[in-house]
């Protein structure tokens, strides 16, 4: 009997190839657009997460100011107590802390001869390559030394180097940063954009030099790398206690592990992806209405056939199942083709514009197929009920 079901359903679909194809096309378009949009969203999420993770996962960031929300703490600056170099040095004694970088930040003009360029200047220490996992392209990074002492060494980002020196050698040359002389001892390897900051178009100088250049004692943040064996949460707690002690019992700073930041990022992007996918799913709804319409028409056309089946002893349940099966077949085939089309378009986009990341999660495919099955069954219910309730005598007479 089940085999007969499949055969009957398939035959009635095949009897009207154009009609069936068009009905399916609605679902194809709907599923393809949902798959494509969610793949774009998921791709963006993954590329942002990997931008984040390139700094390593065992990173803890300390900002000034206390926030509980997902905003950027200390963005505009100025609680009563600043984060200082003293704070940073004190954190070295917290168990589990492997390395750390105090970061000062400002914008200044970097000049070489006639050429000049306004860029972001980071005041950091020798541990940047280790903590941020940035590689030096040529020369070396800032030397080890007392972070409280200024030095006249500078390391340039590759883009800044190219803009100022072209292809010429920059190592050993002198540049002016904010009017002061620095000698170039290294050029970083290319890193590209990280969260909209062009990490190649920057200069790195010692944190104390940046403090004197920008006339401040304040740190933008402290980045702490903890050893692989330690637990992020216990190191975070240690940092918190140490800083509270130094800040006279007040918690006027924010400590966040990389895992927590990732969590926030993931949550936000998942919501955006879901919203965009949801808007795309409106077309699935319209496609479902299409199936409903066509099945309704099919029931009307096949009144005589249904009457005959009933006269031959088919039960109401069997008739209903027959039509449900037909609707489900239409939409599941549409769903399958839609997934293929969506993924194909995604692949095309990736080929055409490599900067856009597209990633179709297997979960989306399963969900799309499940939804299209549900859509088929849902839109088949009404026509199936109508078919099953036909009176065989009336139905046969309609012929």
């Amino acid at each position, binding site marked *: 009997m089940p085999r007969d079901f499949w055969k009957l359903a398939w035959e009635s679909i095949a009897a009207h190839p154009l009609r069936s194809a068009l009905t399916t096309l*609605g679902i194809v378009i709907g599923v393809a657009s949902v798959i494509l*949009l969610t793949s774009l969203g998921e791709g963006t999420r993954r590329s942002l997460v990997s931008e984040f993770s390139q700094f390593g996962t065992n990173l803890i960031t300390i900002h000034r100011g206390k926030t509980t929300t997902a905003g950027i703490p200390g963005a505009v600056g100025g609680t009563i107590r600043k984060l200082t170099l003293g704070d940073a040095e004190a954190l070295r004694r917290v168990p589990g802390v492997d390395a750390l970088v105090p970061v000062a930040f*400002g914008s200044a003009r970097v000049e070489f001869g006639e050429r000049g360029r306004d860029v*972001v200047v980071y005041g950091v220490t020798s541990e940047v390559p280790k903590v941020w996992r940035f590689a030096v392209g040529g020369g070396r990074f800032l030397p080890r030394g007392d972070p409280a002492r200024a030095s006249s060494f500078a390391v340039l980002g590759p883009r800044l180097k190219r803009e100022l020196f072209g292809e010429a050698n920059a190592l050993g040359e002198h540049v002016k940063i904010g009017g002061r002389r620095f000698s170039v001892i290294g050029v970083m390897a290319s890193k590209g954009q990280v969260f909209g*900051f062009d990490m190649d178009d920057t200069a790195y100088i010692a944190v104390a030099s940046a403090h004197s250049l920008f*006339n401040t004692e304040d740190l933008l943040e402290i980045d702490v790398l903890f050893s692989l064996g330690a637990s992020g949460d216990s190191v975070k707690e240690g940092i918190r206690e140490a800083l509270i002690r130094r800040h006279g019992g007040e918690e006027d700073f924010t400590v966040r592990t990389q895992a927590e930041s990732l969590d926030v990022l993931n949550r936000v992007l998942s919501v955006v992806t879901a919203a965009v996918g949801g808007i795309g799913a409106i077309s699935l709804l319209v496609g479902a*209405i299409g199936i409903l319409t066509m099945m309704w028409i099919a029931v009307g056309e096949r009144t005589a056939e249904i009457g005959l089946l009933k006269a031959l002893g088919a039960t109401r349940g069997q008739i209903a199942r027959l039509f449900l099966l037909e609707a489900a077949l239409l939409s599941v085939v549409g769903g399958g083709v839609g997934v293929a089309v969506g993924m194909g378009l995604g692949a095309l986009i990736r080929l055409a514009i490599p900067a856009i990341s597209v990633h179709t999660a297997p979960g989306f495919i399963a969900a799309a197929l499940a939804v299209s099955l549900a859509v088929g069954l849902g839109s088949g219910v009404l026509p199936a009920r109508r078919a099953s309730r036909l009176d065989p005598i009336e139905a046969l007479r309609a012929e």
Partner: protein
Amino acid sequence: MSFRDLVGFAIGALRGHRLRSGLSLLGVAIGVASVILLTSVGEGARLYVTGEFATLGSNLLIVFPGKTETTGISPFLTEAPHALTLEDAEAILHHVRSARRVAPIVFGVAAARVGDRRRDVGVIGTTSEFLGVRQIRLRSGRYLPAGELARGQRVCVIGSKVQSELFGSRNPLGEILHLGEERFRVIGVTAPRGLSIGQDLDEIVHVPVSRGMKLFNKISLFRILVEISSHQEIPAARRNALELLKERHEGFEDVTIWTQDSVLATFSRVLSLLTAALGGIAAISLTVAGVGIMNVMLVSVSERRREIGLLKAIGVMPRQVVSAFLVEAALLSTAGGALGLAAALGATRLMRTMYPSFPARPPFWVVPAALSVSIGVGLLFGALPARRASRLDPVAALARR
């Protein structure tokens, strides 16, 4: 056949299958309604942001310390080698001719305390000019006093929420508020206003600018707001201010000056793009609805073979048959479009009553666009069925049962 006959013929055919026609129409309605709703929300967001900027006061220049070549970086965070000072602000007021009012600003977060109640508040250090530039209204008391000497006074004006949270129902005027280690006397309370460009002015404490700089140990201003006397003067004023500051900063052009127009234009552009993208995604459903119409029309053509054959046998031209089916398809989709339009307009109206501060409103072009697109959908997707009908051989059509 006249056009009236065509429409009558089409309506007759559509009424013969009410459910079927209703469902095809519903598809278009959902598509049109979702496009209009999404663009309305997007347009609402744009209007909201534009309106928010208007409350900043008109004809404004915003001066930031720091400058970068790369775009996309926010100048909010940066420090620069040459501080933006109070003297810079004075100089702008005196040397840029069209500058009418200048409000220097420092900003930070501080722990506020009254008795044993405490909370973190945003603190704006500024001058009496800020009141006019940001169009702030007072609920009681007065604003920061004017004049050079007043800039170091330990007085403050508090937002309405700061008042209710730190003073409760007591009258705060004349009372002492601690910011960090320092004592400030409350001389005024601002009227409730709510969020303005992401800043809740009700949760802000205003202090005199020099006091604010000491409090946050800053030598540089966060920004300078410059109000220009007339709109035409803005580009010239911006140039003058840039030159002036460059001169004052030893030849370094290390400030960024935004005009309110340029900020507004950027926001407007981004939001319009976003609106278009969302509308476009929703418009995919219109394609699906069109496919549905095509399908129903194809069925209708094959059901009405005999009718079409008869029409052709009595001398109706193929072109007229085409028109008859096109009119039918267009009627379906236009009715759907109108229904969707009505539903969306109703929904945006409901939104406006529920959230009066958010001006959700369809962009002006949306109504004509929705109607013409829905007619277009009908004509486009009706074309294939109509051609099929017109090509029927009358003899074969009539001969077959």
